[in-house]
């Protein structure tokens, strides 16, 4: 490292930093919705919802897909292009199945008599999982972009920025769902 770079006041790659701030702003959406939900649950006149079994499955799947995503990152770091692509695909499929299972969860909810249109105690469950799902779709698109780059061999141990950004974002989305799930669980017992 020469003198010039040493005295420059740069902390982090700007793009990775951008992703972090982006995640903070998304968190604020959920912080506000969750606090609204918690206040609502504290009011009389509501009801508890038995969370659909599907939400348990989807939580497992999304964690699994995060594991794959991390493995993809490690593969890129080791310039192991074959496993990079496989793990990327696996995490993508994991994300896709997560969305599908969430949808089944909604079907479960409707079958159990909890509707989107009705008392907010029910509607909030749809809103929280729905808004999360929309963000997850953006994460999926990001994985696709990374995949396209990896086919072109543009992701390797010397160029990890993109995959680092998408991995961080993907873990964040996983964490977010797990957090939402636990919150929903504890406020409905």
């Amino acid at each position, binding site marked *: 490292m020469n003198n010039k770079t040493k005295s420059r006041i740069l902390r982090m790659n700007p793009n990775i930093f951008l992703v972090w701030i982006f995640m903070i702003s998304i968190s604020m959406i959920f912080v*506000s919705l969750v606090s609204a939900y918690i206040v609502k649950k504290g009011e009389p*006149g509501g009801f508890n919802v038995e969370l659909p079994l599907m939400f348990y499955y989807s939580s497992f799947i999304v964690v699994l897909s995060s594991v794959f995503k991390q493995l993809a990152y490690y593969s890129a770091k080791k310039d192991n292009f074959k496993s990079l692509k496989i793990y990327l695909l696996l995490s993508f499929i994991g994300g896709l199945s997560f969305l599908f299972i969430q949808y089944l969860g909604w079907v479960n909810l409707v079958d159990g008599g909890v509707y989107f249109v009705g008392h907010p105690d029910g509607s909030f469950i749809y809103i929280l999982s729905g808004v999360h799902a929309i963000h997850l779709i953006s994460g999926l698109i990001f994985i696709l972009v990374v995949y396209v780059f990896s086919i072109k061999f543009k992701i390797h141990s010397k160029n990890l920025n993109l995959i680092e950004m998408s991995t961080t974002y993907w873990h964040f989305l996983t964490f977010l769902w797990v957090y939402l799930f636990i919150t929903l669980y504890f406020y409905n017992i």
Partner: protein
Amino acid sequence: MKETKLYEEKVVDAHEEHHEQSFIRKYIFSEDHKTIAKQFLITGIFWAIIGGAFSFLFRIQLGFPNVDLTSLSPIIGNWLTPQGKIDPEVYLALITMHGTIMVFFVLTAGLSGTFLNFLIPLQLGARDMASGFLNMFSYWFFFLSSVIMLTSIFVEGGPASGGWTVYPPLSALPQAVSGSGLGMTLWLVSMSFFVVSALLGALNYITTVINLRTEGMTFFRMPLTIWAFLITAILGVLSFPVLLSAALLLIMDRTFGTSFYLSDIYIAGEALSNQGGSAILFQHLFWFLGHPEVYIVILPSLGIASEVIATCSRKPIFGYKAMVYSLIGIGILSFVVWAHHMFISGMNPFLGSVFTILTLIIAVPSAIKSFNYIATLWRGNIIFTPAMLFSIGLVSFFISGGVTGLFLGNSVIDINLHDTYFVVAHFHIVMGSASFFGLFSGVYHWFPKMFGRMMNRNLGYVHFWFTFIGAYLVFFPLHYIGIAGFPRRYYSFTNFEAGKIESFMDLNVFVTIAAGITFAAQFIFLFNFFYSIYRGRKASQNPWKSNTLEWTTPVNPGHGNWPGKIPKVERWAYDYSKPGAKEDFIPQNVPYSKTPESNLPEDEHH
């Protein structure tokens, strides 16, 4: 480290290639922060004219309720009743649009979009924003949002009319008022795009300030403008998403019939089925954004004032660190006072007193800032440029409007004053006027950097005095009208106690006339602005003898800002009139080794 270096080189390459950009890439879909700043400025000016014209229309209703406006019918024909008066529902639509336009489109997007974009890279020594691409998107989302909001003014049923705070149930039920139909839908769509634009902007601003400062530009050497902008952007990132949540739930209530905000409603002879929602929830979500938002509106102006006042007093800013910590303090506190807008929403009085205390604490950093501005001016070698006058005007408004904030912050007093003209007076002085003055100050001060020409000074003075006196004449009397108990947002006061309305009528007439004159005076500015872009006197490189880095760029900086290497920063931005120095200013890029005559003992360590 390595990666950032690559990034830096990439930008330099791009700029050294010297390829001619097409017209569209250069002026329309530009990624250059300076062009984007100008786009925000011009769009903001456009909105300010519309917002101002609307306010004049409803002031006519308040000052001259019996006047016949039929002669205006070619322009606003379908807004009038057959008697030529402004239609009552149109009145509500006008105040709603006025508030929305001024708060969001002018004083948020117009102000932040212009100066944060323009000054952050220039004052920090960066070639551009961290992501020019996202920055371009930020403008175009704002443009889209503007187009939708503008369209909403002309649709069937008129634009949103529940006030700029769009409280449900009024805004949730199309049966409630005609503006809650399509107009409200468009308002929500427009504001959602607006939030996206604001967030894209803020992400970029923060990233650029943290990561792209030039060599030597430590945090505590940053000009106070940049500190103010940084805090503004952080407030935006943390608060605008909450507005998105609030809007989302409202959209659901309106389109799918959910009950987030609705419960037990009986309207137009019909009982609605919605159960379990709460309109107060909306107020909490809205004001959690809303209060930080008022600081998003004022902080850039305060930053601009710091810079202009120090430069034009030829003195170092008084209490630099105190200013920084006040900004941070205001930023943090602004998140814990939102319920002072809701004292009469039925909250627990104990909670009310908690919010009262928190609200009053925010007066402390605000007062520190005011004090430091005055102390900087004190015994300065003041040069009264138009920018300087507007900054001093800002300080005046910030103080006189802040004082009434202390009244309102007391829940006990606010219960009487809430939703009266007293509140209107408070925020038009402390937010509206102060922030507008910062905007004007910034335009006068950085016009030479933006357009390479000077604005006309004398027109600037005329503009200042009309606006300064005018704003006080318009907004100060509103305090009295408010203390007398007149509620805001009322179309007319005919049902008031006999005698009362008459006794305030002359004051209302006075305010309306003052508003007309003040509004008209803005055309002096408009003329000066557009004329000077093409015909203004050519600017020199550093016309105000200022220390900050933007004045080390060429008069008309190109893409990449500095033709050669980016200057290195050697000192803070406020070495004005340093004892012993040859001149009364030492730019930030002059090393201490070149100024042995003025160095202080502690400077030698740097």
